[in-house]
């Protein structure tokens, strides 16, 4: 609550709200001032005002209502109109502009990340894993749409009529049902593990375990972790830790963000640019301060039932990176610990665990995520068109 009152957005919105209440005092100067104020807050807030669509209704109100309603006591170019209605409509339109800017100021910074955090706070636990699955399937959905569109164009040329649109939509929906069924029946391989089964198995065990999830890049380690988190949260089992998210900047350029599962806060973990004196693994330089941030976050979350640490690897085996966090977990954490690693670092696992004898002595579960299918849902781009002959 304190944060809300300190925010710049709150004060801007309050000023605009007061302006709405006092608009009648000096309509035009107030609107002018509010547009300038909105521009100071964020120029994007007033950009929709330059869209023609925004003015259609206002034009209708201002031009038509005085001609067809009220007492037509005035004339303009011989056309009778109601000056009283005209004044009312102008005021109404100006109010519309100011209220619109008020909502723009309140919502312009809304994005999918903030929405996701809000939904998690509202206990929509599934949203995380569902959103991950959806994002993974979006390229496949696009492929279906493109492939079916190409089929229609090939068969009929550019002259498309309603029947073909219906045929296209029908084929696309059938493909998507086919895709959903394929992915629904996709099973975990023998040596991988279903997050549901894992939670159920460990619920029956008296001692805490160490779970190692191994997989190649793109095998679905992060979706697997997200899925596990949503299952644990839905069962009111306290889970915390840090998971990483790949963020694409442009073609062949990306970085990772690390998210605190407890607070939902995210920070950039690395960059493909070179940072002087920073740890460097492969193409990435790691921001040194982020490791301290993770350590601080871990110290506050040691009472949870589960702790997840995503993307542990050679840095930690060499005593760097997240090594202090692993030490803290080794000494002070009593719950289940989940670590994800790339498959090619598997040989370093024992070297890594030698540093953490308490974690090493726990019952251990090692799961390999198959490289082609992943856990949650990996796109099956080549097999989604159910019937190529259509």
């Amino acid at each position: 609550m304190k944060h809300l009152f300190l925010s710049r957005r709150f004060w801007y919105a309050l000023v605009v709200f007061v302006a709405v209440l006092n608009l009648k005092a000096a309509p035009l100067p107030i609107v002018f001032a509010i547009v300038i104020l909105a521009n100071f807050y964020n120029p994007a807030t007033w950009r929709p005002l330059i869209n023609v669509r925004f003015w259609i209704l206002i034009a209708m109100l201002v031009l038509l209502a005085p001609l067809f309603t009220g007492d037509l006591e005035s004339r303009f170019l011989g056309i009778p109109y109601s000056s009283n209605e005209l004044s009312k409509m102008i005021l109404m339109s100006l109010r519309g502009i100011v209220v619109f800017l008020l909502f723009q100021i309140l919502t312009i910074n809304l994005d999918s990340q903030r929405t996701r955090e809000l939904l998690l706070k509202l206990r929509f636990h599934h949203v995380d894993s569902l959103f991950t699955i959806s994002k993974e399937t979006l390229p496949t959905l696009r492929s279906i749409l493109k492939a079916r569109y190409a089929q229609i164009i090939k068969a009929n040329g550019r002259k498309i009529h309603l029947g073909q649109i219906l045929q296209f939509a029908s084929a696309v929906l059938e493909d998507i049902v086919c895709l959903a069924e394929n992915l629904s029946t996709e099973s975990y391989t023998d040596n991988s593990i279903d997050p549901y089964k894992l939670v159920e198995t460990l619920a029956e065990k008296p001692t805490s375990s160490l779970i190692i999830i191994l997989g190649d890049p793109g095998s679905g380690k992060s979706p697997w972790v997200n899925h596990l988190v949503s299952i644990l949260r839905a069962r009111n089992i306290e889970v915390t830790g840090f998971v990483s998210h790949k963020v694409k900047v442009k073609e062949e350029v990306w970085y990772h963000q690390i998210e605190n599962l407890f607070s939902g806060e995210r920070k950039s973990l690395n960059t493909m640019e070179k940072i002087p004196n920073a740890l460097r693994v492969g193409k990435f330089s790691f921001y040194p301060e982020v490791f301290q941030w993770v350590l601080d976050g871990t110290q506050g979350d040691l009472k949870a039932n589960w702790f997840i640490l995503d993307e542990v690897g050679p840095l930690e085996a060499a005593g760097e990176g997240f090594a202090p966090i692993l030490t803290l977990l080794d000494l002070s954490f009593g719950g289940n610990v989940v670590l994800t690693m790339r498959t090619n670092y598997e040989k370093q696992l024992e070297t890594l665990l030698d540093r953490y004898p308490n974690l090493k002595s726990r019952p251990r579960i090692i799961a390999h995520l198959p490289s082609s299918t992943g856990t949650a849902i990996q796109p099956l781009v080549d097999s989604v068109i159910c019937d190529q002959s259509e």
Partner: protein
Amino acid sequence: MLTADRFDRRSMVYIAIFGALWGLAEATLGSLMHLLHVPFSGSVLGSIGMGIVLIARSLNPKRGSTILMSLIAASIKMLSFSTVKLGPFVAIVVEGFLLEILLSILGTGRLAFLFSALVISVYPILQSIITKSILFGQSFIPVILDLVAGISRRIGHHAGWWALGLYIAVHWLLAGSAAVFSWVVLKRIRRDEDHLS
């Protein structure tokens, strides 16, 4: 609340995929229609969303799934937003909420498709009335009704009321077509499934 045990793997996949499809339609078609200033774009998108929901809910009849689908669709739509954010997000989530109530009560039979079309045809009008009343004030509706009556009086032949009726009829037509279309597609999918099994 929506518990994990309610949704098995198949349900989760259906919700995620059809939610993504709905979001993709909103983001791509919605942006295109907005760019081209296509009239009734809200109703067209609402009808497409309803068609997707009806098919998904029929194949995955789990309570709560439609709300989750709408949240996924709204989040995907949010990725494509330029500057106006709240309106489209609320529109998608409220549509999902209305359909969830309807489909939870009526199931997924012909009656549910019919009532969904009725509700979704009225919903954009209602949404527009509420949004415009918030923007322009409480007198917005009386002004529009006065305008309709005034046009009818001046032009004659109840022209204003015909125009208003036409506006509502287009909405009904769009939603009705989407419901019929999704019914036909659903039957086709089921027929194919039977044929394969």
